[in-house]
């Protein structure tokens, strides 16, 4: 089995066309695409397509349900902030707990969540600073930026209002404490007090907005959403799956040259032989990921583009890459079993793989298009691979968030292998 794998790797190492297609072409493609498109979307150019007319939904977990200020904040986010903010509740009207809502967020049922802490109203009335937490998994930088600005605007207004009220209350206290207080001088006193409060609110706002992460928040900051963070994983998935043709072509060549007969006549056995043919594809995919991600980290910055961040959960990334490699490799067996001619392997399967890559969001992230495209995309392994990479590399999430991607990719692998093995013609 390993002999076959080693021999195939030797043959591949001498095949310049295959090497260029597997390693150089993807790098050139990524560099040209990101460079020409100027797609560093950190500045917000990459997002928000078509979203301006609609109010952006903002589910809220209100842990201070009886607090009037909390309710005012939620209302304010809708009326002043232009968001569709509401308490996140089940169909029967029961508000979700924080844990339930976070689970929904991780399951990608919602893209962002605002959490108002318990005692929010009481702390504010006592003049104590409070924090509200926004957890965002959307990779649409335009929409995310708009939500953040709306929340900060509304909370800043609330802080100011609260602090002006506090200054007036202090003035009233001074009046009550001094019986000889001359009302004519109240304005002279009130203005400096209000200014002082305002300055304090700038340096120490009463309401601060903290950005959180859906899982493993202790693992560091969420990477900035850039064209590189979107483009490199997307194109990596495209080219990874294109290497499925390597397995198919290798098996086709063995049959065409007659070496397949020799292998069948050897004591190897059919299944070890087939697995031996799969290993090189698996190795190539691993090398591809290393080379493409390394190019994203070190080559793209040399061209003035942001560096690729690998996120904060490398073990999860390794698991995802292994699942993607397995899926791509077993897809090769399926192609080898179904394709009858060289044209079917080279042309038709390549076309199918490019279409699947498009549907799966390798070129344009599906969250930038519409929900129906995302639904269609879910039937492709590309979608789950791309989504997994986005979760890790761009959303800064961890293993929990990509378990679904890994499981689906392994499921695809099992289906591809079983169909491929069933249809494979050894004779």
């Amino acid at each position, binding site marked *: 089995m390993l002999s076959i794998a080693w021999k195939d790797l030797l043959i591949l190492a001498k095949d310049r066309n295959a090497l260029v297609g597997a390693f150089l072409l993807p790098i050139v493609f990524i560099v040209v695409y990101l460079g020409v498109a100027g797609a560093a979307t950190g500045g917000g150019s990459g997002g928000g397509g078509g979203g301006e007319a609609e109010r952006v939904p903002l589910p809220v977990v209100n842990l201070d349900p009886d607090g009037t200020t909390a309710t005012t904040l939620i209302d304010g986010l809708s009326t002043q902030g232009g968001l569709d903010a509401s308490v996140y509740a089940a169909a029967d009207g029961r508000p979700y707990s924080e844990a339930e809502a976070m689970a929904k967020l991780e399951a990608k049922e919602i893209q962002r969540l605002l959490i108002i802490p318990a005692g929010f109203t009481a702390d504010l009335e006592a003049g104590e600073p409070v924090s509200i937490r926004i957890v965002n998994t959307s990779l649409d930088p335009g929409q995310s930026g708009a939500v953040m600005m709306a929340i900060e605007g509304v909370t800043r207004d609330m802080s100011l209002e609260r602090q002006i009220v506090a200054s007036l209350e202090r003035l009233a206290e001074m009046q009550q404490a001094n019986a000889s207080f001359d009302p004519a001088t109240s304005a002279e006193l009130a203005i400096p007090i209000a200014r002082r409060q305002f300055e304090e609110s700038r340096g120490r706002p009463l309401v601060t907005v903290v950005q959180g992460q859906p899982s493993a928040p202790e693992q560091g900051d969420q990477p900035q959403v850039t064209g590189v963070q979107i483009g490199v994983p997307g194109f990596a998935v495209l080219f990874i799956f294109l290497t499925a043709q390597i397995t198919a072509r290798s098996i086709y060549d063995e049959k065409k040259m*007659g*070496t397949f007969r*020799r292998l069948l*006549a*050897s004591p190897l056995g059919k299944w070890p032989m087939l697995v031996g043919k799969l290993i090189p594809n698996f190795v190539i995919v691993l090398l591809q990921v290393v080379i493409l991600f390394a190019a994203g980290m070190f080559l793209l910055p040399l061209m003035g583009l942001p560096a690729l961040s690998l996120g904060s959960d490398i073990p999860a990334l390794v698991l995802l890459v292994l699942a993607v490699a397995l899926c791509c490799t077993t897809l090769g067996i399926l192609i080898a079993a179904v394709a009858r001619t060289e044209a079917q392997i080279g042309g038709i399967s390549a076309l199918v793989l490019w279409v699947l890559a498009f549907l799966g969001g390798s070129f344009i992230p599906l969250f930038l298009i519409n929900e129906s495209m995302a639904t269609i995309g879910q039937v492709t392994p590309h979608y789950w691979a791309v989504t997994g990479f986005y979760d890790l590399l761009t959303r800064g999430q961890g293993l929990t968030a990509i378990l679904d991607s890994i499981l689906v990719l392994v499921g695809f692998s099992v289906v591809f292998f079983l169909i491929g093995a069933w249809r494979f013609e050894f004779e």
Partner: protein
Amino acid sequence: MPAILEADHLVKTYGNHVAVDGVSFAVEEGEVFGLLGPNGAGKTTTISMLTGVLEPTSGTARIGGHDILAEATEVKRINGLVPQDLALYPTLSARANLQFFGRIYGLRGKALRERVDDVLEIVALADRADEAIEKYSGGMKRRVNIAAGLVHQPRLLFLDEPTVGVDPQSRNHIFESVQRLNRDRRMSIIYTSHYMEEVELLCNRVAIVDQGRIIALDTIRNLIAILGGGVIQIGLGQCGDEMLAAIRALPAVVNAGLVASQAPAARPDDEAPAEHPAAGAAAPAASTEPPPAGPVLVKIETRRSQDALVQVIGYLNERDVAFTSIEIFEPNLESVFLHLTGKKLRE
């Protein structure tokens, strides 16, 4: 001599097409056994079943005492296969190819290196062993193709049309290699070909295969003896029963009849031409049915072809019968095949 191979009613069908139709034969240890037949006769399919490449539809075989179905792995260790195609990896060197084929038979380390060096010597390619095979001539590639089947020292070597597309010099080299392997290493060899000269040169015994069946099996001497002194095939404007009987009566003629493809379907009780006992269930190649009117092809088996030719031509001249063609087949496997099937080997 014990048999290294015993094939027992091997059958291979593809849908309605019967590629191999109940083939049975045995090969003795140390023998060079030929499978002679035209392209499409079923030789390669038979070999494919014996080497584990194809599963028989029915029937089985024992090789080295092991059943090819129940003990496939043991059988595959005994076998060496040299396919008709150049079954090699062209971008790799001869050495790398041979090392790979050695490894898949479990050879490693020093043993592998020694075996590779040994087979490179056998095929006389040691000096160019590290060049990529794609740079080799056709004959050199053929030699590496043979070496790849030898690297694990098989007891039974299957050579499937090993000289197709080979220049005369390389062909001679292949013949010498086969003879040396058999003589010096006592390797049993099954050699398929549609070139009767090769089979006559190399093989002790020959099975003649046509349409998936063995139609004759014996030593070359015995097979040729079927024909006595050779065969004459003569084209006539017409040939009646009386003329056929007269030709048969000529002293140097053993038998005469119309070529099977031109004769009406033979009845089961038809008198078959003289046939060697080893010729098995061969279909009669000539018929004694009343000949059709019009041009016919008459096949004449002779005691001595030159004498028979003189007598036949004399007879035809006496009766003023013109002949349209005349062909003499000296006694060899080609004429045996013609005799048994009514076809030439390379038709």
